[in-house]
């Protein structure tokens, strides 16, 4: 199907949107938001990668990060996004109660991600690692802090939708579930790059 042909004037209404078909106004708006976020994260990640290329000794500092907690967080976010996709599908099938359950799971796993991140921060502070401890730690706290803020924002949006969905009262907000799912997937996508860049790069490690 030609997606361009699917964009008609009457589709430029957020509330009419119930799936990722065609490019509606709401969906286009979220993509504009995402493209601006790409500028932010690509700039930060690009800076980090370039610095890391010229400073392989940063391996020593990155090896202090807790790989197990990082891996757990990766799995939490992957699962959280999976449930958000299920919530979107449930809304499209007009099953708001089921969608609310999936949204609750999404929120729970998102909160768990933030809690694990909090534990990691606490451990790092106890070891004397602060944003001012060096360039690597500045990048680490900045990147994970901004990402965490995006998680928090996404959780608030999902929570607001959940309040309506659990009462079977999404009404015209149905389309927002898919849009929020799109944003939530982007947040996961950012972590897919953050995690290996911060935790897994062994460049500079002793052989």
């Amino acid at each position, binding site marked *: 199907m030609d997606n361009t042909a699917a964009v008609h004037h009457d589709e430029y209404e957020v509330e009419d949107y119930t799936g990722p078909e065609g490019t509606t106004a709401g969906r286009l708006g979220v993509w504009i938001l995402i493209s601006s976020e790409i500028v932010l994260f690509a700039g930060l990640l690009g800076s980090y990668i370039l610095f890391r290329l010229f400073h392989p000794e940063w391996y020593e500092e990155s090896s202090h990060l807790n790989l197990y907690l990082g*891996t757990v967080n990766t799995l939490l976010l992957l699962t959280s996004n999976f449930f958000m*996709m299920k919530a979107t599908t449930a809304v499209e099938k007009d099953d708001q109660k089921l969608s609310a359950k999936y949204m609750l799971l999404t929120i729970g796993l998102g909160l768990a991600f933030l809690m694990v991140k909090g534990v990691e921060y606490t451990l790092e502070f106890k070891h004397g690692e602060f944003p001012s401890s060096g360039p690597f730690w500045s990048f680490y706290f900045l990147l994970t802090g901004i990402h965490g803020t995006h998680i928090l924002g996404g959780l608030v949006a999902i929570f607001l939708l959940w309040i309506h969905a659990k009462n079977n009262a999404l009404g015209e907000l149905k389309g927002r579930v898919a849009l929020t799912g799109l944003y939530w*997937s982007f947040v996961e996508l950012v972590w897919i790059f953050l995690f290996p860049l911060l935790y897994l790069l062994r460049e500079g490690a002793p052989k």
Partner: protein
Amino acid sequence: MNLSTSKSNHELVYIALVILALVTVGSSFLHLPGNTGVYVIFALALSQAFLVALQYMGLKIEGFMVYALMIIPLILFAIFVFLCIPDIAHYPLHLNI
């Protein structure tokens, strides 16, 4: 375009993402020669990113406008990286870290 197929793939995509994430973690312990380890990790991360973008974010069914939107930050990013390279290459000379 078959939307129902893309939706029923959520479980498969999730399983693939989990496996790729675990393989990425595992590959970091392999101590591959040279920069091979870095390339492997990036390849696995890119695979995951493509899966999320195409399947979960629905990029595979999006129209031209969304792709056009995505080009702009990528061009900005390329310019940014190009302008930064000489500065970062000389960073130790200026800041002595």
